[in-house]
């Protein structure tokens, strides 16, 4: 196998890796917000259920969760799982990462002193106004570094999609390594991941700069 075939096969895999990455970010970040609200709900039952959900998502391996999401519908309900491979991966990743994002958001929100809520109430802000105009702008700024951490972890975690035999970049690297009895594909994979994460860090730094208010 020539180097260019190797690179183009792995480049194709890289596109699939990117698809997992962007779709997971797209779904898990807003979902994390919803979970965070549920986690802070005034109803105890809702709070406890959400806590359990977060505990399961953080407490079990993502690999296992992916297997459950994909094979679950068949084994539990006898449904046909044809063509369900990719959606299962996206669901698995999004549900898992949403739990982590929820906790990051919560951490951010709980650092805001109670005094700010009281002041907002005195000034006549409604609850929604207080949250969107006063709390959220401060929270977004504070949690960005943690969010960057999580996103970078996601880039590397995409390789877990091999569990469901989705041909993302690292699976292809392993296949090429097997067929060529060579270590080169792993080195290329490493370079791919590094550059992808460098790009993520670069973009996140730009976003942090854009949020450079309240100085």
């Amino acid at each position, binding site marked *: *196998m*020539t*180097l*260019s*075939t*190797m*690179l*183009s*096969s792995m*480049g194709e895999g*890289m*596109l699939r890796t*990117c698809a997992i990455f*962007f779709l997971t970010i*797209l779904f898990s*970040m807003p979902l994390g917000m919803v979970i965070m609200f549920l986690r802070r709900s005034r109803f105890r039952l809702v709070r406890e259920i959400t806590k359990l959900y977060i505990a399961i998502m953080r407490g079990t391996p993502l690999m296992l969760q992916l*297997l459950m999401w994909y*094979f679950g519908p*068949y*084994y539990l309900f006898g449904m*046909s*799982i*044809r063509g369900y*491979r990719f959606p299962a991966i996206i669901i698995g990743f999004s549900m898992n990462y949403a739990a982590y994002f929820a906790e990051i958001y919560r951490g951010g929100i709980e650092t805001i002193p109670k005094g700010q809520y009281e002041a907002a109430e005195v000034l006549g802000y409604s609850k929604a106004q207080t949250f*969107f*105009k*006063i709390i*959220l*702008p401060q929270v*977004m700024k504070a949690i960005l570094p943690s969010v960057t951490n999580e996103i970078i972890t996601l880039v590397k975690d995409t390789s877990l999609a*091999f*569990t*469901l*035999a989705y*041909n993302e970049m690292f*699976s*292809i690297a*392993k*296949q*090429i*390594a*097997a*067929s*060529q*009895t*060579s*270590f*080169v594909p792993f*080195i*290329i994979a490493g*370079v*791919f991941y590094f*550059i*992808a994460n460098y*790009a993520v860090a670069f*973009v996140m730094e730009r*976003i942090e700069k*854009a*949020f450079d*208010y309240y100085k």
Partner: protein
Amino acid sequence: MKKKLALLTAALMITASVAGCGSSGSTAPTASTAASTAASTAAESTAAESTAAASTAETASAASYVFLEEDLGVESYAIGFRVGDEELAETVSGAVQALVLNGTYDKIGEKYPDIKDYLCLTADDIDASTLPEEGSGDPNYTFKHGFDLDYPPYSYLQDDGSVGGFDVELCQAVCEYLGWGYESVPFNWDAKDMELNAKSCDCIWSGFTKEGREDDYTWGITYSNNTQGILVPADSDIKTLADLSGKIVGVQTATSAYDMLEDSKKDLADTFAELKVYETYTIAFNDLKAGAIDAIAIDMTAGSFLISGAN
């Protein structure tokens, strides 16, 4: 004014977090082209290094890796179907035999020199009268071939990046013979039973050992034999199975070599200093090259493939 500004920024942040994905998305193509150029230079230098390393290794010892003369045992490779799928198993097995008669089986075998000597079907043993007719299959049926893409020379990525290997080509020929559609379902070997039972594939056909699994599947025809052996560096002082005592031996997880060492050859495995279980043989082989382990338990065809890649 400040309130408005805060509201604006809040709205901006929500859009920005979405657009953030979008904008990093648009940078992705440039990042990947940058990646490929960077990777190609990196890979070129490593490729150059490895050829240099290989040539020095070759001068050190001509044949670098050999199998011990004593083997662990013989096994047969067959096609595994879901329990109860007798009719499907019979049709596919019949088609394989028909391909033996018309010479396709041997022709595919010629392309894979590591397998050729282990093919066990010959035209003399086949009763032509009971085989399915060419084109007798349902043209609307698509046969889903489940296999492991990490298992050369039975199923692996070809030099041009396409999916191939002896089993893949034979299965495609079977589908062509019967007039079925062919769909490849590469899966993760550890999840093969889940894939088969959940019907995402119709068979497991990927250098699949029958021994020890007789009751777990409905078996199709045995189309290849194989021998499990021990692979060692040519200059190693390990010459017999007894010499493995106190040595570190590598094996790939969920393979029949592994099953053997855990079950029928457990006595032998107990003499090892350690049985190291790997995700793939590629990594195990790299460890052998690096001297981190002393031997690898592997079947002869996959082992020969590794050796021919290394020499």
